[in-house]
């Protein structure tokens, strides 16, 4: 923990008061930790206070601390386009609970929270489009969790368009003997 706080961090600590559970600025990155229920409120304060104006959500991800309780840590990086401040906002989430989404404030939260959901299975409350994004919808499991074995075989799933494969096989390898006409004459 540094002795002298940066301008942004000092202002944030003063404004958010008791909501900040802890803070530090390691390697030059200002970080505050809030309760998961306060995520949206804290972000709204950061966004709407003119002297902070954190209007760009740079990055949103999560960390899986599987030996600790609560298990997940949702990490957001904010950037202020007018003051060029940076701030990291963290909150801890239980495995089966949800955390407020930032979609109401930032458009970029949409895809990044979808990715966090896709990789960690963290639910975002108020997210209007929480689907898998990088993986396919039939995928089971949360790959970036520490207990996900990356060497395991991928589960097979049923074809999305049943019957199409057989038709293709017929087209590619026609067998004149038993081939049926594709269309009614």
């Amino acid at each position: 923990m540094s002795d002298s706080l940066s301008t942004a961090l000092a202002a944030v600590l003063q404004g958010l008061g008791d909501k900040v559970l802890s803070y530090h600025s390691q390697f030059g990155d200002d970080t505050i930790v809030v309760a998961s229920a306060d995520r949206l409120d804290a972000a709204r304060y950061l966004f709407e206070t003119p002297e902070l104006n954190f209007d760009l959500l740079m990055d949103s991800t999560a960390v899986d601390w599987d030996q600790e309780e609560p298990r997940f840590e949702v990490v957001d990086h904010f950037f202020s386009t007018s003051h060029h401040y940076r701030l990291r906002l963290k909150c801890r989430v239980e495995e089966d609970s949800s955390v407020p989404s930032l979609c109401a404030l930032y458009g970029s939260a949409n895809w990044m929270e979808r990715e966090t959901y896709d990789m960690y299975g963290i639910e975002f409350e108020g997210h209007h489009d929480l689907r898998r994004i990088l993986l396919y919808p039939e995928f089971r499991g949360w790959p970036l969790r520490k207990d996900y074995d990356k060497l395991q075989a991928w589960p097979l799933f049923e074809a999305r368009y049943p019957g199409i494969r057989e038709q293709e096989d017929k087209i590619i390898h026609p067998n004149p003997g038993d081939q049926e006409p594709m269309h009614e004459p």
Partner: protein
Amino acid sequence: MSLDLPYSQGGEFVDLPHDIRLRRIYPEGEDYDLSARTVLNVGPSHPAMHGTIRMVVELDGETIVGCDVIPGYLHRGFEKECEAHTYHQAIPYTDRLNYCSPLINNFAWVETVEKMFGVEVPRRTQLIRMYLSEVSRITDHLTCIGAALMEVGALTPFLWMIEVRDWYWEHICRVTGARLTQTYARIGGLARDVTDEWLDRCEQINSEHLVKTLRDVHVLVDHNRIFIDRMRGVGVVSQKDAISYGVTGPMLRSTGVGLDCRKYAPYELYEEVSFDVPIGKYGDNYDRYFVRMREMEESMKICRQLDPLIRATNGEEIKVDDSRVSLPPKSEVYSNIEALMNHFKLIMEGQRPPQGECYHAVEGGNGELGFYIVSDGTGRPYKARCRPPSFVNMGSAHLQLLGAQVADIVPIFGQINMIGGECDR
């Protein structure tokens, strides 16, 4: 479900089979017959979708009134793999993020780790990194603009630009040993040193090939009626939307926001060189084309300023003298036990940065490329996150697509310059 979002264009979500969710708009003042709408699938394997991305668009005539952008076809678990490898072993994975400018990714990764160690790399290393970053930025923009022009019908500039890009890549190959997957950065230094002759030739490529090509492309397409019709006023994003959707890089600058990571948070030695940050005015495809063209000139300007600075540091060490980070010289390894042990530990266990978390960002070809690393004090990252500019920029594609024509998909996509390796990781 109707959308109540800060800056989105409104509309609603419509679920289609197979997990497709269209974001649909109803243009005002006209009575649309929903049954007349066509759903068209574009990609993931489509000549214009260089890289692999899939779009499902709903059309009313030729107007796009609904869309769903589906990335992920090139997902290969970059972050999961990083967690299973040492910091050093992860460098080749970063090559494959943005494969149009792999060196920028390399340097961003090692600089994040160096930041955690708190080591200051030698001046010569920083200068060479900057020089190669700028050359990579040029190759990135050449690829983007060349491909984007080709897709709107101008094949000639594509051939010119790819030719110049190949001059650069072949020349980079002479110092890194590879054209594409260069793996040139090392934590605390570089793999090899550059020579004066190498710099001479690079300057020759700049002044002979690049300058001429940029001029020719400007002459050929800037005032071309077809080009202007396809680009001007197409894919417009407002400043407010761009910031809300986290857009960075040339796309953000085309809307008139002069934000460049090299200016607002200078890393390496960018404070020592002078360059301009070109910005656009309307935030459309034409402005994006111009911003990228101007950025290549600025990168060339930076290279020319760096050239004498690199020559002035000739003969200096290119890796930091810190046994926690750098491998000892081979002569030492074979002659004394401490160096041998040091080498063994660094290779087998990896560099072990102190516990903690670090975010470091650089200006990549498409925007702010950041790495967020959480270290638990061991030789492997506990968490390694790449903040991919392409992915975030692609998240704003629906703003440009909705209301556009079906033929606009290609130029819009070309100017977003999504790089599959970086978007899907």
